[in-house]
């Protein structure tokens, strides 16, 4: 199996999914910041709540959305929620992970085997890197809060 490098379009499809979520769920679009390369050895996930999809089937790696609790609380508020439990916060990142999963399948085709989106809180949940290629971070800013989309994928050449 040989893998090709990720192309900008491979990353844009996920950043657009995040933008779309904020635009539709809160009516306020999130600002995409400059993408950068995550240095080897740096943790992939590093914020309060993380939504992750693991992919397989000729592909390897993960796509994750990582956000601070304050951002998600604000999102819940904008969505009219009264309940601000951990579970509700996890639901938001889980929903975003679900959206990422749908976009991934549409973009990469049926050959992509995607795990059930996982949502968990805590910075200590280490995710073992499953891809060998460069991981990318695409930061988002929404109402002054910063969140990150992480794309770490080996795509079949």
């Amino acid at each position, binding site marked *: 199996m*040989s893998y090709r490098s*990720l192309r900008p379009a491979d990353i*844009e499809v996920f950043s657009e999914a995040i933008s779309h979520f904020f635009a539709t769920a809160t009516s306020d679009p999130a600002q995409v*910041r*400059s993408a950068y390369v995550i240095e080897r050895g740096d943790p992939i996930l590093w914020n309060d709540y993380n939504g992750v999809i693991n992919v397989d089937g000729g592909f390897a790696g993960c796509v994750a959305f990582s956000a601070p609790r304050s951002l998600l609380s604000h999102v819940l508020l904008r969505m009219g929620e009264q309940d601000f439990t951990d579970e509700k916060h996890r639901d938001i990142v889980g929903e975003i992970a679900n959206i990422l999963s749908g976009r991934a399948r549409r*973009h990469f085709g049926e050959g992509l085997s995607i795990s059930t989106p996982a949502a968990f809180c805590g910075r200590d949940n280490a995710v073992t890197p499953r891809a060998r290629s460069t991981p990318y971070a695409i930061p988002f800013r929404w109402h002054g809060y910063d969140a990150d989309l992480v794309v770490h994928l080996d795509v079949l*050449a």
Partner: protein
Amino acid sequence: MNSATGLLGKYRDLVIAIALFLVLDLGVLLFNFYASGRIEADTSKINASGELRMYSQQLAKALLTLAQELRDGMPIQTSQAQISESHANFRKALAELARRDGRDDAIAQWLSREALANEADLLRRIETYWQPLDGTVVPLLGKENPEAIDVEIAVTKVVARNIKLMQLANDLTQHLETEAVATAGRLRSIQITAILLALVNFAFIVFKFVRALRRSDRVAEVAHEETDEILATLREGLFLLNADGSIGSQRSLSLDNLFGRPVRTGERLSDTLAALVEPDTAAVAADYVELLFKDRIKAGLLDQLNPLSEVAVRGEGEDGRQRRHLSFAFDQVRKDNKVAALLVTVHDVSEQVRLRSELAGAEEQLRRDVDLLLAVLDRDPGLVAAFLVSAEEKIELMNADLQQVEPEASAYAGMIDRLFRHTHAIKGEAATLGFGTVAREAHAFEDRLVPLRRSGNISGKELIPLAVALSGLREQLERLRGVYDKASNFARPAQGLDPVLRQIERLTRHVAQDLDKQVRFEAVAAHLPVLPESLATLLREAVPQLVRNAVAHGIESAEERLRAGKPAEGRVRVEVERQAGDILAVSVWDDGRGICADSLRRQLVDSGRKSTEEAARMSERDLFALLFEPGFSTAATANPHAGRGVGLDVLRELVARLGARLKIATVPNSYTRFTLLVKA
């Protein structure tokens, strides 16, 4: 002939049975004809036999009347007429009975041999009794006045024989009637038997035919099921292409998967291909298929021309998905030596193409690694190490810039300029050292930067390709680092200026070759056993930029130089000298076109950066200062060696970093000298 025999052989029993049925039917028909003739003949005989009795009686009566009339002297004409008529009718009836038509053939003999014998016996006895009477009556016929004695003799004979004749005629009639009934019964039996045989035969035909039909149906059904199973399980796409270009009804199910959609019977292959492959390929394929339908063309001869032998399929594989490849093979199906159809086989060769591509990629990578290894081994390890440290540092700075930049257009613009400088510096150093893969990747990164620098309003989304390009550049450096780390065990570090100057000379030759210019490199260097860090940095980062500029911008083409009265070969000279006050001077000189202030003014006006008046008011110093601004280039188009407007920007940043000084001396159409002064 063989097929005809085979066909008769296959249906032999059936053909024989049908022939037998026809023979039986024809036999019954003929026998009916025969039977009806026989019954008609029997009826005629029975009638004739009955008439014998009647005419015998009439003859007797007429003779007795004649005798009486002769005795009484009465007229005898009536009696004579009756005698004549009875006699004639008797003989006629007798002749009728004697006739054997339809009753004496082989069939009649077979049917009623004994009865016929009895009949003949009775008839013979009647004739025996009749002959004397006939001999007596015949002389009386036709005489106007017969002798009474003759009449009396005839009367005597008729009286004596009439009873017997009547008795015999009666017996004959009964015999004939009995025999006719018996014969009719036998004929009926034969007819019934024949009809029954015909029916049995018909039943046999029906049984045989239905059985053959069922067996044939079963064979066809089994064959059909087998064909269906084969077509359902075949991994390859298989179909017949008709002469009108339509796809036949028998095709493998896998074809739908291969084409990515259901295929319809009668669908034109040209339409299918139009949706699958590029329009050019589809057009060439249509011509190729048309060629294959020509009777004189052999498919095998055209294999090499097949435009679909390995074709990328449109629809899937875009947007990052793996692209599929199909292979179409065509075989001519001939009937009477004419091409009736094409058998088309379709294979999914994506895996083969992928493996081949992987193999080619692996070979290319190996080749690059070997080239890289050779390049590393050929260079001074100290220079390579310094380049790697410097480049890795720049990559880190660039990534940090991407990570930390504020999401504002002005911040983005500043970052783009910084990225440009770092990349250009990496490209220059890499090219100087001959690390083409790194230089190419850096150039590709610059390609990403160019449109962003021109754009006034940059969004974060537009910067995603930069992170990807940076990753590509970093990967090349990592690869170089890996090769260097392995090779450094064998390499021997060199000392002094020589290795650096050799690298610069190599770069000069490389750029001149790329730009098709004739350039001679010259170096004049002071003896420096150990290079001060500041000088080493200038030689590594600044001088390559200046040499590249000298060749790209300064040195003219050979034709232009000859027209200007210069030698075709240009000169580029690098000088390193010690100056007073522990100052080191590095200069790059070329005998090219120099820097023309008026040309710069014209360029400023043409690019819209200054008005004609503003440009005219600018001093030469101000004009030359423009050369160091980001994005300003005197080259009309960009190439790997010039045109980005970054080289002197990098130089300016370097000069500021090292606390060095820069002097420019130039005379149009004569020379340009850049001199860098730095403390040792």
